[in-house]
């Protein structure tokens, strides 16, 4: 059985749903952010699969890789800022659990 685009897409779907489960089920804000990294990587796997297998000239196909580079950049910026916010929240509130930060909950 040869490698085809569908394999990348199904792996991407699996990573995405696992990450989504983590975002919804974890209490700790740090672990929620780790799961968000899984979501971003699922997108990258899909993009790289498309870049390798879609029937397009190579100079168009490489856009998949370029977009993946941008996603990695944004996710690095996101994780740095988000961790700083988590540290700040922990210092102010004494907890980093997302379900205990319910001051604004109606």
């Amino acid at each position, binding site marked *: 059985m040869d490698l085809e685009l569908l394999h990348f897409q199904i792996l991407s779907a699996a990573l995405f749903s696992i990450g989504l489960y983590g975002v919804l089920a974890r209490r700790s804000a740090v672990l929620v952010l780790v799961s968000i990294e899984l979501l971003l990587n699922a997108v990258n796997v899909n993009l790289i699969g498309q870049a390798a297998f879609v029937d397009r000239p190579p100079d168009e196909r490489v856009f998949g890789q370029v977009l993946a580079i941008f996603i990695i950049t944004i996710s690095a910026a996101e994780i740095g800022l988000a961790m700083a916010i988590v*540290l700040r929240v922990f210092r102010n509130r004494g907890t980093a659990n997302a379900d205990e930060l319910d001051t604004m909950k109606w």
Partner: protein
Amino acid sequence: MSAIVFYVLAVITVIGALGVVLDRNVVRATLSLLIAMLGVAGIFLVAYAEFLALAQILIYAGAVTIVILFAIMLTRTTDLNINLDNPQRPVAFLIAVGVFVLLTLTFIYSDVPQLAEPDSVAVAIAESNSTGFETVGDSLFNQWAIPFEIASVILLVAMVGAIALARGDDNEPAVDASVEINEVSA
């Protein structure tokens, strides 16, 4: 051959990802992320994205995991092995399974025009006398030069913002976490 490598890497990636969301230990969950990221880097290699594989290992396996480990170390409370999961776990499980089924069906029934021969990416790269690095670099610095510069500004802003946020005020005394919890609950 590349299919077998892909399957092995996919299994490693999924096991790592499951470790991230299921493990009861925070540090072990983070180290599972490392395994998943290395698996994804291998999958990038299978799909002829050498530069992405290197960037993945450098940024995720190197930088992001270290940042997360530092955050865990700094936000640690006395009880490390408390319940890490929400009461909404069953709902989360149902949503995740639903999303997986939906995405898989969409992918199966979508008809993206695919290359007849999977290895023709490598052939095209060999014919154009350029490596994957050169193709990506050409595209990144010619066609996508302005988005690239904007991305670098975003990184700078995020770095300065993270320092400003995490540093805190100089005149603010360090708050004792346990006192703060009592104040909040009172």
